[in-house]
């Protein structure tokens, strides 16, 4: 369809199918409703001000039909929409991960090797990519129209989205959550390139900074995490980092939690929130305010790397 932005991700096709179904059922119901109304206007024009009209108070069957049929159609649409949405929210395990930090008014991308870019995201074609989002200041929203994906970047939280680009080229990246003065200037480009070009991109590293994992390792030592958390699986004062990421852990006071980015983040900033069963309370210092977003990201990447 011409009026749609070019679809260039694996979601595009399913997405467009749901869209077309909703579009055409909407057009048909509007034609029935508005067409009927216009027909009646002409067919039953007033002749005199004393016209006798039919005394029809209701018709249970007809009313049942036009409540039941829409109900079924609406539920069907909701279910179909959910099916496609579920794919958008089921994250592949083999995806390339890129950390994206939003700030007023720029997008900062950080790759696993420490390479950083501002306003430009480079990804390989035909490979799943997971974007890990956060924000330094206010809420922003990461939107690539051609991929049909969007997710808010919320300060103090980690959110994510994934896509798999199907076509090489450059695509628009917009901020869709109002974020102040230069909201409409918070643009970016998503550059989809062949795998070979992507590998070359990753190899050249003009920043030559330390990678997040490397920085995380330094922080692990500097911030004295190492005193209580091992990386070889032995529990000390706190749980070992080895293999902890993505694991389901029991929480003191009942319940379990998956040790994902948000849980780790929370445990760094406010350790008392959810203590793992079997470990003492009030041992770990609160890091709220002591670490910046980049440092937290680096620590999380480091913990993730302890497989």
């Amino acid at each position, binding site marked *: 369809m011409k009026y749609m932005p070019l679809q260039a991700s694996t979601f595009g096709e399913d*997405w467009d199918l749901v869209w077309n179904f909703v579009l055409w059922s909407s057009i048909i119901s509007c034609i029935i409703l508005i067409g009927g109304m216009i027909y009646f206007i002409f067919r039953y024009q007033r002749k005199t001000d004393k016209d006798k009209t039919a005394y029809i108070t209701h018709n249970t069957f*007809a009313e049942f039909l036009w409540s039941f049929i829409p109900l079924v159609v609406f539920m069907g649409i*909701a279910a179909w929409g959910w099916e496609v*949405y579920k794919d958008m929210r089921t994250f592949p395990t083999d995806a390339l991960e890129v950390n994206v930090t939003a700030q007023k008014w720029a997008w900062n991308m950080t790759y696993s090797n420490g390479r950083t870019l501002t306003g430009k995201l480079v990804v390989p074609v035909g490979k799943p990519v997971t974007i890990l989002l956060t924000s330094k200041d206010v809420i922003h929203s990461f939107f690539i129209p051609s991929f049909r994906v969007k997710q808010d970047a919320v300060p103090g939280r980690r959110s994510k989205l994934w896509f798999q680009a199907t076509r090489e080229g450059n695509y628009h990246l917009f901020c869709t959550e109002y974020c102040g003065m230069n909201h409409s200037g918070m643009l970016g480009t998503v550059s989809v390139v062949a795998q070979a070009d992507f590998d070359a991109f990753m190899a050249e590293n003009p920043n030559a900074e330390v990678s997040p994992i490397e920085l995380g390792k330094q922080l692990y030592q500097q911030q004295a995490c190492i005193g209580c958390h091992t990386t070889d699986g032995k529990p000390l004062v706190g749980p070992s980092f080895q293999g902890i990421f993505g694991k389901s852990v029991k929480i003191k006071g009942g319940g379990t939690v998956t040790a994902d980015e948000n849980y780790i983040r929370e445990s760094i900033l406010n350790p008392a929130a959810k203590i793992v069963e079997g470990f003492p309370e009030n041992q770990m210092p609160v890091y709220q305010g002591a670490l910046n977003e980049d440092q937290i990201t680096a620590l999380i990447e480091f913990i993730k790397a302890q497989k």
Partner: protein
Amino acid sequence: MAHEHSTDYLHHGKGLWSWLTTLDHKRIGLMYMIAILTFFFFGGIFALLIRLELMHPGTQFMSPTVYNQVMTLHGTMMVFMVIIPGIPAFLGNFVLPIHLGAKDVAFPRLNLFSWYIFIAGALIAASAVVFGGVDTGWTFYTPYSIQTYKGTVFMVLGAFVMGFSSILTGLNFIVTVHKLRAPGMTMNRVPLFIWSIYSTAIIQVLATPVLAITLLLLVMERTLGIGFFDASLGGDPVLFQHFFWFYSHPAVYIMILPAMGIISELVVTFSRKVVFGYTAIAYSSIGIAAVSFLVWGHHMFVSGQSEFAGKIFSFITMLVGVPTAIKMFNWVSTMYKGSIRMDSPMLFAVGFMFLFAIGGVTGIFLATLSIDVHLHDTYFVVAHFHYVMVGGTLMALMGGIYYWFPKMFGKMFNETLARITFALIFLGFNITFFPQFIAGVQGMPRRYQDYIPEYEWLNRISTIGSWLIGAGFLLVLYVLIQGLRKGKPAGPNPWGAKTLEWTIPSPPPHENFTTTPVVSGGPYEYR
């Protein structure tokens, strides 16, 4: 001439002071009208400025800083000062007691007090412009609203104060409907306008306190630094969105239910026919009101809310479509085998159904999870809610104004000109907002002062349309003033309608009914 107690309400007491201290629901209704039309005028000017700025990409005459403030003033004024109070406080006040066969609302003093609260709130909100400005959009999302200009506090306090006016008016109407119906007027015999105002009042009373608390928390966070919503203070910015939409989604129905009530009256009168499916229309209002409390999460599908919550909210939101569909089909069925006259109020009613149908089905697009991920916060949403709020509520308000104008002032307006206002507004509206659906589908985000060149042609069409709407409303103003000054006497029942307000003189006497009416049948007995 007649005794003192049977002079019409416009001449019962003279001078400005008699208006400012009046306890008469009809006069209070007109006082709301004057306030609301004034705010509407300013909100409309802001809208025209916005469209002018967006006619081409780049900056025309408003820098981003100015644009963001104008956009915010347009949104907050239109929502909190025009559309929310528009129908209930203005037409509801004027019509509701007469529809019930009552002399006034249950608490006339409270009614006058509500008007003063509303004005006070509006003034506090407007003072935001002087005290540093506001640029948050009408949604006041945290943490941005905590960090930006100081004027935000005044705007938020203003909305807080106006909320009380809304709560008290709702309370007044609920009690009036329960206690002051004329003898013989059972709940199954009240006009459908009453059912819609009644459902609205329930939402006003139950939902508005949540907004009040939310806004108060926001003010406390800003002024005292208590961290409810700011992540750096240990709060949660998304929590604000939950609170805000818990009110603001039901508020959408505060805006649209009264409009639906007007449409029921208009379709019946101008078809000269008993309403089709009275019970279904009446109870669908209550149904919409009830479901409206359970769908707020559909504004937050990409906010980081859990997928499961998103799923539940998507399904429940779809349910709202059902009572809405019932109403639409029942109105069209009322026209079947009727005797239809397309006078200006009916033109607006038909315009309502046309635009509201489009507004309604595009709501289904947005309630569908996968589709919403793409459309959320784009111009598709902007177009959708303008089709509902302007194409719905404002069209109904215009129809209602033309319909009850002869009753309010005892005079007719120029019908030909009134039909031209419809043509201008209806055409202008579609030219303005339909292209915005396409811009949204193509990905243009909302609240953008500037945009990429691909979207220019759509924005240019949209801006041209806005001039037609502007011209239409200017002409409305002329039609009303001319009708007031030179209109021919209207007589008690110019439209051949059946509800009680048309059984008394135009304008109505101060006490509405010289003898209390006794009701023996339904509201629309065209036999």
